[in-house]
């Protein structure tokens, strides 16, 4: 059984310019000890999805319309605030993008690290402090018994991010939600933090939900990937499948438009024309259609469902043979159907 099962999650926001459908029918599974990435550009709904799971969205303006999120058998979206508190920070840990704003500037690391323990586990000060020192050591902070009394401003960016990871892991959660955990860091430090997350995952069997815009990071880190566009998952695949044979035109466009150290310099970079749709306008058909080079007539009238890229009729029968790969695109379904006949 999966550790986390998200089904048909829909979230919208009330704004001055009307309703915004931030997350539209998102479903995914995450197994214990697995690493899963939600990839997308700004406004794609990747962070809102993660925040909705643990009710960290301010309501209003956010409204969770439908959906279920089963974590260890309980539906997170139906839990009351008291029960949620028992899950948040204890069974599910978080690491956010900016380590300088997620730490309290006037509390020592030790005070912040032990807070969760004292809320959730009622341990004594001494035990809590010892565990804080242990956690700091585990995330690779030198001289943890001195650092435990430091204030955040005394630490570098990378050290602060390590401290945040230590804090998220204090109660030994089963799931870590990491929202752009390395975006604010330099590349040499980013590599260190990724290695740390990988190692913690190996050691504790931690499941990690990585939220990022950086495809390079995804390739290095996640086993499964869901690509989001305008609030929906448009493609899901294993990382190696996704990079070798992207099935959705948006994924293909993204992969081609990111320069790497290996791409040829002879031609200009290929680009995705235009920009992401205005979220306040409701879309008919495929939200990527205005930017898509493969669009068909059917893309205008109805939204393509997320299916294995195999041809619509045979999809269900062949699902098991193809693993859990899916793409929400009529054209990729058509091509696949053609290839089969």
């Amino acid at each position, binding site marked *: 059984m999966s550790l986390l099962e998200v089904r048909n999650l829909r979230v919208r926001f009330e704004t001055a310019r009307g309703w915004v459908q931030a997350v539209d029918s998102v479903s995914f599974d995450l197994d214990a000890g697995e690493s899963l990435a939600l990839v997308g*550009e*700004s406004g794609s709904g990747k962070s809102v999805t993660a925040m909705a799971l643990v009710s960290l969205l301010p309501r209003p303006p956010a409204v969770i319309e439908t959906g279920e999120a089963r974590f260890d058998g309980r539906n997170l979206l139906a839990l009351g605030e008291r029960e949620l508190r028992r899950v948040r920070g204890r069974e599910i840990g978080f690491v956010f993008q900016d380590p300088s704003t997620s730490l309290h500037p006037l509390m020592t690391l030790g005070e912040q690290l032990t807070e969760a323990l004292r809320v959730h586990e009622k341990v004594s000060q001494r035990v809590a402090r010892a565990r804080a020192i242990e956690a700091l050591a585990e995330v690779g902070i030198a001289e943890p018994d001195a650092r435990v009394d430091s204030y955040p401003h005394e630490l*570098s*960016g*990378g*050290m602060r991010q390590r401290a945040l990871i230590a804090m998220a892991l204090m109660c030994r959660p089963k799931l870590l939600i990491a929202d752009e955990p390395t975006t604010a860091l*330099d*590349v*040499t*430090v*980013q*590599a*260190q933090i990724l*290695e740390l997350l990988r190692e913690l995952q190996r050691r504790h069997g931690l499941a990690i939900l990585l939220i990022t*815009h*950086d*495809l*390079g*990071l995804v*390739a*290095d880190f996640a086993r499964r990937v869901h690509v989001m566009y305008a609030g929906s998952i448009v493609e899901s695949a294993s*990382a*190696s499948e*996704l*990079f070798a044979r992207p099935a959705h035109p948006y994924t293909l*466009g*993204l*992969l081609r*438009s*990111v*320069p*790497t*150290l*290996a*791409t040829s*310099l002879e031609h*200009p*970079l*290929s*680009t*995705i*024309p235009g*920009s*992401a749709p205005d979220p306040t306008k409701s879309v008919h058909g495929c939200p990527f259609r205005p*930017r898509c080079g493969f669009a068909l007539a059917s893309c205008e009238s109805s939204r393509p469902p997320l299916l294995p890229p195999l041809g619509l009729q045979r999809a269900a029968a062949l699902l098991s043979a193809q693993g859990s790969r899916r793409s929400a695109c009529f054209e990729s379904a058509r091509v696949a159907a053609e290839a089969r006949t």
Partner: protein
Amino acid sequence: MSSILLDVAGVRVHFPERGGSWFGPRRTIRAVDGVSFQLERGESLGLVGESGSGKSTTARVVAGLQTPTAGAVRLHGQLFGPRAPRSVRRHVQMVFQDPYASLDPRRPIGWTVEELLAVHGLLKPRQRRLRVLAALDACGLEALYVHRYPHELSGGQRQRVAIARALVAEPELLVCDEPTSALDVSVRAQIVNLLCELRERFELALLFVSHDLAVVRRVCEQVAVMYLGHVVELAPRSQLFDAPRHPYTRALLAAIPRGDPEHPAPHVALLGEPPSPMHPPSGCVFHPRCPRAGDVAGERCAREFPKSVERGDALVACHLDQP
């Protein structure tokens, strides 16, 4: 007259520590500590490095927005800086990272772009309009954008406006500070292509500051790698990416995710983080993190700053790489 357009010679920028300690002397932040390079007409140089390396401060000095503490910037042999006459300063224009912050939200795009011509007293009002339209067109924006306001545009379009504003004065040198970092991935490629195209079309020299080496490789023929206020390696693109010489350049290249799940980046290339420019290390500024600092006899790396020497087509500042 020589073909050297821009000559940056021994530039240092030291800032006094803000606020400082209540007791004792104010310390100095050595943001840029002796940077030299030259640019010819139409040439492009990328400045890369991590935060605190001094790459943005160097760009601000070149754009004439910051007076260097020591050293000099010359444009066509003439001293250049915040005090240079407007007629000289118009030849260097800058594009900033955040197009949301660098455009006036209360002015239509046409006004914002035209303002630059007015400030420099270029052209008559009628001709100015035409020049504005031409600059917007060169950046892929239609004439109707003249009447739009920044909030009506997407991030990519705003950055196009910022580039059009820089181009309208027909500069010889364009200084770009992380021009693609605030943009979404799918839009970033459009702006990278636009910059490459404009450079060729207008024979623009380009100083391009970025932390993204893959983007710099696309845009620039020369690359300077900065660390803690120093240029540690300056080399032509092909040499820097195919045969990096300085240990820091190598580590930086190794740390970039490959975008290939079958061949992930080799784990942790470099330990620790760049030290504060307030207390730069003795000797070679990179030595506390350098994987090869121990290879040099007599702890020379900790004592003596390595001079930049020519190695092939590159300039490298490393004790391990001396002729």
